[in-house]
């Protein structure tokens, strides 16, 4: 497990548990939980709230023959088979399992698209209410200074980045809202791979990313 310092908020975890997040946010939350047992436990405690509400809810009668119908469903083999659990940590992959599902494999399967100055992105297909992309930032490079109209979540998968607020390493998630205008810079040690989800279009304050001073701190 990673030594995670930056975690998800309660409202995101509750919305995840309730099933009310846009697909792109669901994906980044699932990816963070795959790397962070603290948030896995927090998410599970929010699931227990759902369990408690379910026990206490009203009931609606099932139709006659419903149980027999369910048994038929089980024995007919109509249900989709359960995929075998994958443990990416054991396999040494960079991408957590839920992200691998969207990419169709690990890093070598990602279809990168250059956005300038060595920075690459790959947009993952999700529902339209929010978007999510993988970002590849060469060591020491800055992502253009940008603000956000909505909320932006950035999860580090490899390497690290530093911005005006703090340093973010593998498993750390930065939650940025409209107030934050930031320039994330990839740490000098290693190329940085992040997953970034947003529910609005990014606003770039400059058109072209610039090479930042190499970062020797930390």
């Amino acid at each position, binding site marked *: 497990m990673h030594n995670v310092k930056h975690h998800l*908020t*309660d*409202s995101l975890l*509750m*919305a995840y*548990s*309730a*099933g*009310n997040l846009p*697909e792109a946010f*669901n994906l980044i939350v*699932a*990816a963070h*939980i*795959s790397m962070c*047992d*603290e948030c*896995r*436990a*927090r*998410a*599970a*405690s*929010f*699931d*227990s*709230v*759902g*369990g*408690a*509400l*379910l*026990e*206490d*809810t*009203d*009931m*609606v*009668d*099932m139709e006659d023959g*419903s*149980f027999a*119908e*369910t*048994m038929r*469903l*089980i024995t007919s083999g109509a*249900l989709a088979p*359960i995929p075998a*659990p*994958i*443990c990416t940590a054991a396999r040494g992959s960079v991408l*957590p*399992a*839920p992200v691998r*599902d*969207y990419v169709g494999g690990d890093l070598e399967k990602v279809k990168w698209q250059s956005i300038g100055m060595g920075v690459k992105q790959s947009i993952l297909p*999700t*529902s339209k209410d929010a978007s999510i992309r993988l970002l590849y930032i060469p060591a020491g490079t800055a992502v253009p200074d940008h603000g956000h109209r909505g*909320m932006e979540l950035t999860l580090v998968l490899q390497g690290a980045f530093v911005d005006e607020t703090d340093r973010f390493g593998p498993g750390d998630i930065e939650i940025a809202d409209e107030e934050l205008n930031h320039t994330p810079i990839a740490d000098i040690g290693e190329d940085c791979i992040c997953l970034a989800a947003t529910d609005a279009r990014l606003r770039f304050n400059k058109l072209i990313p610039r090479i930042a001073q190499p970062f020797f701190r930390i």
Partner: protein
Amino acid sequence: MKTKYDPTDWISHMTRIRDAQDQAAFAELFQYFAPRVKAFLMRSGADATLAEECTQEVMATLWQKAHLFDASRASVATWVFTIARNRKIDALRKQRRPEPEDLVWGPEEEPDQADILSLQQESEQLGRAIAALPEKQRDLIEKAYFGDLSHSEIAEQTGLPLGTIKSRIRLALDRLRHAMK
């Protein structure tokens, strides 16, 4: 009529389904949970026909995934809720539900009985705490789970006493990680 069941008993039902494909145990679980799942799906916007169909699928999935249920991390009601929630996203919202990587016990190891018991007790206590919440607060939480409150509409401070149950689950995860090594 709401008969109070012993939640640890539901765990033995799950074990009977997992180990012996016990239909009688499944029938009892079905009788208790299916009408609740159906109500949950209808409150989430499904009509009666869709809710009926989805509930049957949820209950069938419960049978199919019985071997993945971990009583040191969830009560049976919580487990049913997560399956129903996923079905809601899939069938009602037509979206994929990305899931975190699975952590499962290997064939040789099982969760500790003491961990199972304390988690089940914590789940019951949480249920009582939720029932005792002021009406306004409980309404908000129900809206979050049964309605469609977005993450930005959910307050950061929910007032839910989740610290103890979270610590229990965390402990169970640590033991599982240790067993996986």
